[in-house]
């Protein structure tokens, strides 16, 4: 059977392509076991990946369609409001040290 595993330069090229196109999961899922091992052991790949990220940031981040900061701020505020609501509505944490309230203990105690 022919060796279908990609070489390290092909893996880097595919990683760069996936990052540029915003579809990293597709690249991650395309990796075979052998390719995964090759990535782990290749120092060059990790060094090159750092530059690929820089190129992605410098070359494409400015062209990305980024939302308006004011609109985004209201989205963040809604997230905070939802966290506040969740914190208020969540039940009290249960005591884990085995201590019980006096009234409950007294209720279960048998009269001597």
């Amino acid at each position: 059977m022919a060796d279908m595993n990609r070489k390290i330069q092909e893996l880097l090229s595919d990683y760069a392509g996936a990052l540029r196109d915003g579809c990293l999961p597709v690249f991650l899922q395309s990796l075979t076991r052998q390719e995964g091992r090759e990535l782990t052991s290749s120092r060059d790949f990790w060094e090159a990946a750092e530059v690929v990220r820089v190129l992605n940031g410098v070359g494409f981040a400015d062209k990305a369609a980024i939302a308006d900061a004011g609109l985004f701020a209201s989205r963040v505020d809604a997230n905070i409001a939802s966290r506040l609501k969740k914190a208020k509505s969540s039940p009290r944490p249960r005591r884990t040290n085995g201590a019980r309230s006096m009234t409950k203990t007294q209720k279960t105690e048998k009269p001597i």
Partner: protein
Amino acid sequence: MNKRLRNAMKGLTAPDVDRRRRAMEPFVRETFQVFIRYLYRYLGNEVECEDVLEDVYADIWENPDRLRDMESERQLLRTVYLYYMRKRLREVYRRMNRHLYLSQNDLTNLTAPELGLLDTMSQSELKQALGRAMGRLKARERRAIELWLQGMSVRAIANELKTTVGAVKMLKFRTILKLKEMMSEYCHEE
């Protein structure tokens, strides 16, 4: 740190929850463009960047202690990446991991890496360093990277350079390693 950012950070670490909430809006307005561009490096996808950043800001609101006594924009970005963004970036692809032939460690290094020398540079510094490094490349190497940055596929670059797809991938790999070396030199000089 510039005055506007310093003002925007006032109230961010206040003990009162509502005051902190009010302080978030100017902070978001002042830092949004920088933070989202920084995240874009790792995700390359606007929608995911916004989702992650929304949680990052909410995390900052919930636990802002790490942002006390920030002295520069670089320190702020570094702290936000290390203590807020990285955790969220890891979560983006964590759910995928059981279907992958990649260790958890490698997945983390690929999607939310430790800060390297280049990661700590600002966007303008990086542009400058990249410009200088590109100027020192051979014409064919520079052309391959420029075409890539224009958004061309490897096949289209191969057609343009009148070579094979495999040769372009190799050329790109070697050129990127060369760029890494040159940009690291630039960092040390600075």
